[in-house]
């Protein structure tokens, strides 16, 4: 009987054990794909087409993300559409993603969402996420395997319920040049516990000019070891537990995934949620954040780092392309292109279906979309030309992005970094200056929100334009004809479109995020900056014993300390004042007030001199607020308050230094905030002396210190000269 029971128990235990992994396996992996980056980096193109549908090597970006999710074993994807949601949904409905047997794609649509945080809150409300999920934006290209990261995440979650997120990171060379030339992003600092891989610190907006970062010293106190990295790159792929969504709901001010959410979790140790990292080595992951990363990721795809998501492998209904050997390297070709015999197509080039290339044209390192017509003697270098573009004879394009339906008349030249949005027409022999962005839509003014974009009303009414006008709110368009006239000649004869003035940051910043290579002078600037930053190489630091005082080292510069403490002391004073006023109103016992002020002192890490100053300040403030008609009344009030609260003040006056602090504080008040006291300075000083708050030594030392000061500083010393004189004499007599 007993044996049977035991066996039953064992069986039950076995069942429980076996249930557990089953549970994990049964829970299908979900993913949230944000089909909107909530930024404006790809304007003006994104005014007309959502970023996730922009072609990346002739395939809309979102396909790379979806193909990867499918391959990584995700069963259900929620595509969150916001800007141009109709276009995204239409595209997905017509694509093959909706007809996959083991992969469901669902769209969630909302128009009044302005940040990733809002999107996640909305998804939480819909209650569709049941287990761990992958959070990714629709502009991420990767071929990594999720299995290991997911496994690690689940194991951590089992051990520690607070491990809510695993962030995928990748090594990159710790140099601002690399960062800049690769993805156009700023430097990223991360502090990671080398043993547990817990993320302790995340800073992507480090101030370059200072060359410093600030670490909370508690970080060093709490963790036995920390490695500080500036050689990691954030892949923007996160494996999250369902708690993440509720966290977003609880903290309704979280907007940005990294800036608010990650930093918020790291700083807020009340809830104790933890973020971990998973580093990938050989596989590829990158997010397209701006034009430069668009350029770099395209090149990586052509060079097959993203295999199997490469042009000659059909992964999502793209047309079959074939590789051809060009010299040593390979070029992806579609089988049905018309190419003149004398045209030279160089290496690392992708040419789409049905494109015609005229004689003597040279194309290298470029991507050309479907149905383009390229005339003869055209030079195309490092450029991205989308579908149905017509480029007439003799044009030159270097490092530019040209969107669908653009027409370039003969002899037009695009300088590096130019972006031509949809259906722009460039006039004959017109030279578009470097880094300019050209669109049929007029640049929205800075204050316009997305909804109120004012569409231009084109009086000349070309065919291309009328199609846009159909969608545009014509009544809104307040473009006057003369200003369109003013814009017109800018694109040469027959040109259609507006050159956008360079927005925030100005020319200075444009080179950072454009497709054009970084100019020489900027590179030298960067490398000089890097030399200065040499001290910032990765260092492993081990904290001292927790009891010992931690001296914050090179990372926290003194300037920062001062600034911080200044801020702190202002807050501290305000807090003390509030406490004091409340105590006066509610008749709190002096002892309790002392306790409260003490706790404030501890939390702000202040000295007792600061406390004394703050308490005295609040007392004086109270005195001046008490209604009074004359100076003598004010004096009387002050005397009363000092008498009532002398115990409080005295508890901080342990040494003579604190007393001097009070005098200095009083002096400061008389000069600045409470000028009414200035005539009463000597008398109040006397009161303080009488009440034994200030000793004569303190007053005398203050007077001595002031001896050498400027005349203007001596006003109060002079005023209280008699009193000081009397004090001196009294002490001499005693001697």
């Amino acid at each position, binding site marked *: 009987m007993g044996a049977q029971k035991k066996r039953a128990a064992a069986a039950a235990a076995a069942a429980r054990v076996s249930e557990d992994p089953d549970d994990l396996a049964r829970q299908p992996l979900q993913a949230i794909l944000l089909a909107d980056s909530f930024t404006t980096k790809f304007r003006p193109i994104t005014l007309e087409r959502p970023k996730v549908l922009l072609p990346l090597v002739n395939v809309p970006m979102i396909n790379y993300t979806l*193909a990867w999710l*499918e*391959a990584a074993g995700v069963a259900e994807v929620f595509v969150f559409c916001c800007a141009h949601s109709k276009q995204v949904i239409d595209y997905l409905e017509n694509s*093959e993603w909706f*007809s*996959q*047997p083991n992969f469901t794609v669902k769209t969630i649509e909302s128009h009044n969402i302005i940040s990733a945080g809002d999107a996640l809150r909305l998804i939480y409300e819909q209650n569709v996420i049941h287990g761990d999920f992958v959070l990714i934006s629709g502009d991420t290209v990767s*071929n990594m395997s999720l299995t290991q990261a997911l496994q690690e995440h689940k194991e951590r979650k089992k051990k520690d319920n607070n491990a809510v997120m695993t962030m995928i990171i*990748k*090594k*990159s*060379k710790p*140099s601002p*040049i*690399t960062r800049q*030339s*690769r993805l156009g992003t700023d430097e990223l600092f991360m502090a990671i516990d080398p043993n547990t891989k817990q993320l302790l610190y995340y800073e992507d907006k480090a101030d370059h000019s200072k060359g410093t970062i600030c670490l909370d010293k508690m970080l060093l106190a709490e963790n036995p070891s920390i490695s500080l990295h500036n050689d990691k790159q954030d892949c923007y792929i996160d494996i999250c537990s369902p708690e993440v969504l509720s966290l977003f709901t609880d903290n309704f001010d979280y907007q940005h995934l990294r800036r608010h959410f990650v930093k918020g979790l790291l700083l807020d140790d009340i809830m104790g949620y933890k973020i971990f990292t998973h580093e990938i*080595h*050989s*596989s*590829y992951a990158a997010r397209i954040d701006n034009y430069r990363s668009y*350029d*770099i990721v395209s*090149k990586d795809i052509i*060079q*097959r*780092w*993203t*295999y*199997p998501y*490469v042009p*000659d*492998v*059909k*992964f999502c209904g793209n047309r*079959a392309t*074939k*590789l051809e050997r060009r010299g*040593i*390297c*390979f070029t992806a070709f579609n089988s049905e292109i018309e190419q003149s015999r004398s045209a030279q197509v160089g*290496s*690392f080039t992708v040419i789409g279906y049905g494109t015609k290339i005229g004689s003597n044209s040279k194309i*290298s*390192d470029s991507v050309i979309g479907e149905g383009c017509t390229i005339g003869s003697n055209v030079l195309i*270098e*490092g450029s991205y030309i989308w579908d149905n573009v017509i480029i007439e004879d003799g044009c030159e394009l270097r*490092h530019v992005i040209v969107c669908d339906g653009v027409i370039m008349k003969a002899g037009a030249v695009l300088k590096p970094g130019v972006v031509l949005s949809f259906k722009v027409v460039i006039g004959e022999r017109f030279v578009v200056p470097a880094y300019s962005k050209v669109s049929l839509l007029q640049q929205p003014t800075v204050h316009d929100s997305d909804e109120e974009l004012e569409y231009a009303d084109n009086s000349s009414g070309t065919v291309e334009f009328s199609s846009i006008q159909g969608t545009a709110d014509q009544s809104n368009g307040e473009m006057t004809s003369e200003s369109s006239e003013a814009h017109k000649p800018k694109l040469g004869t027959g040109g259609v479109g507006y050159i956008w003035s360079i927005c925030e940051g100005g020319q200075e910043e444009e080179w950072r995020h454009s497709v054009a*290579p*970084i100019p020489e002078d900027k*590179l030298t600037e960067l490398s000089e900056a890097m030399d200065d930053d040499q001290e910032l190489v990765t260092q492993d630091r081990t904290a001292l014993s927790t009891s010992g005082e931690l001296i914050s080292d090179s990372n926290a510069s003194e300037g920062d300390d001062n600034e911080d403490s200044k801020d702190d002391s202002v807050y501290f004073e305000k807090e003390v004042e509030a406490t004091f006023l409340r105590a006066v109103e509610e008749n709190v016992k002096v002892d309790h007030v002392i306790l409260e002020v003490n706790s404030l002192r501890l939390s702000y890490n202040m000295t007792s001199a600061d406390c004394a100053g703050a308490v005295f300040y609040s007392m004086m403030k109270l005195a001046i607020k008490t209604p009074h008609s004359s100076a003598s009344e004010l004096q009387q009030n002050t005397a009363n308050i000092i008498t009532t609260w002398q115990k409080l003040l005295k508890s901080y006056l342990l040494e003579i230094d604190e007393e001097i602090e009070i005098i200095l504080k009083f002096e400061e008040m008389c000069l600045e905030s409470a000028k009414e006291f200035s005539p009463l300075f000597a008398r109040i000083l006397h009161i303080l002396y009488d009440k034994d708050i200030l000793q004569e030594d303190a007053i005398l030392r203050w007077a001595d210190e002031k001896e050498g000061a400027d005349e203007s500083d001596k006003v109060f010393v002079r005023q209280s000269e008699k009193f000081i004189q009397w004090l001196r004499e009294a002490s001499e007599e005693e001697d």
Partner: protein
Amino acid sequence: MTQIEPQNQLTLDLSRKHKIEGSQATARQTAELLRSVISQQRVPYTNQAGALIDAVKAIGEQLIAANPVELAVGNIVRRVLHIIREEDLSLTTAAIGGLNLSAVSDDENDDDRDGDSTLSAAAVAAAARSTLRPPSLQTLLEDTPVSAAVPQTSSSGGDSEGKSKSADKSSRSRKLKHDVIEAVNELIQDIVTCHEQIAEQAVEHIHQNEVILTLGSSRTVLEFLFAAKEKKRSFRVFVAEGAPRYQGHLLAKELVARGLQTTLITDSAVFAMISRVNMVIVGAHAVMANGGVIAPVGMNLVALAAQKHAVPFVVLAGSHKLCPLYPHNPEVLLNELRSPSELLDFGEFSDCMDFGSGSGSPLLHVVNPAFDYVPPKLVSLFITDAGGHNPSYMYRLIADYYSADDLVVQRRATAGN
């Protein structure tokens, strides 16, 4: 009928390369898919074979396009087409032979072969085939129908059922489908058992105390070596690791687990070791009609080294790897360029890209082809599930498996053949 669910799935699986690995699995899945296509295909009263052929071609075209590098898909599609033709032919001939109804034939091909009324269906099929192309060497030598060497081409039910019903067309159409499915089942069986059939021949080739060299990992090679080991042959194996995927490491582990004396060497050490080797035994990705081999990268070096030292270079290949195309066709020679990250971590590579964006193209290119081409003159022997063959004989073997009409798998606008 062209858009059915499993077919989409397989197309996708084929094109997303992570799903199916290895030509055997691909071949098997393709055959199973085609079987279900055939069983679901409604056949009209007239010209059933034509309808089946069209259906198979339609799907085959898509499958081949999904991953043109995996030649096994095309091979299986062509094999199935060949099966349909054979079965149709044998049925028609049997019908004509049995009832002497020359007018029944709806297949124009048959019109000129009314005479052979006394032969069994399979024999008729073989005879019919032999009128289409030169007779196979095997048929000539053995004087038997194809069944022994090429079981899948023999019509399984042909002999018995061929005589039973004939005039009734609907039953005939059902029978054609049934026969075809039966034959495809045999084909699937062949694919599944190809390793064993090849391995059975191991003792004939591996002798006591020999030293065998192989490159990379191949299941066929693994089974082959085990089979020899099981027959109490004692021999040594040199395994070249097969960079950059290093599958040789896996092979070495498995060999050791089965108690074989194994030495692991780098690919570059092959030439140094070849003089001590008695035989090179390798697997293949595909065998072309001229006897050339598409094999994992590095194989050409091994073959050259073997030739230099007059070591036999033996290629093991299941019959699903026999491809009726010639390698001068650029579509076939098309190599698969795999991810450069197998050679170099992406992180390391990005270190070299600092100023790479200056001219637009980086100075470092990483090229990682998956396959090598070994010309037939370097191959000493092919061992398929049908036995050992000389490279110059491959085209005949292939002619036994495929119809010349199917070399280009493309749907025709009009039904019928």
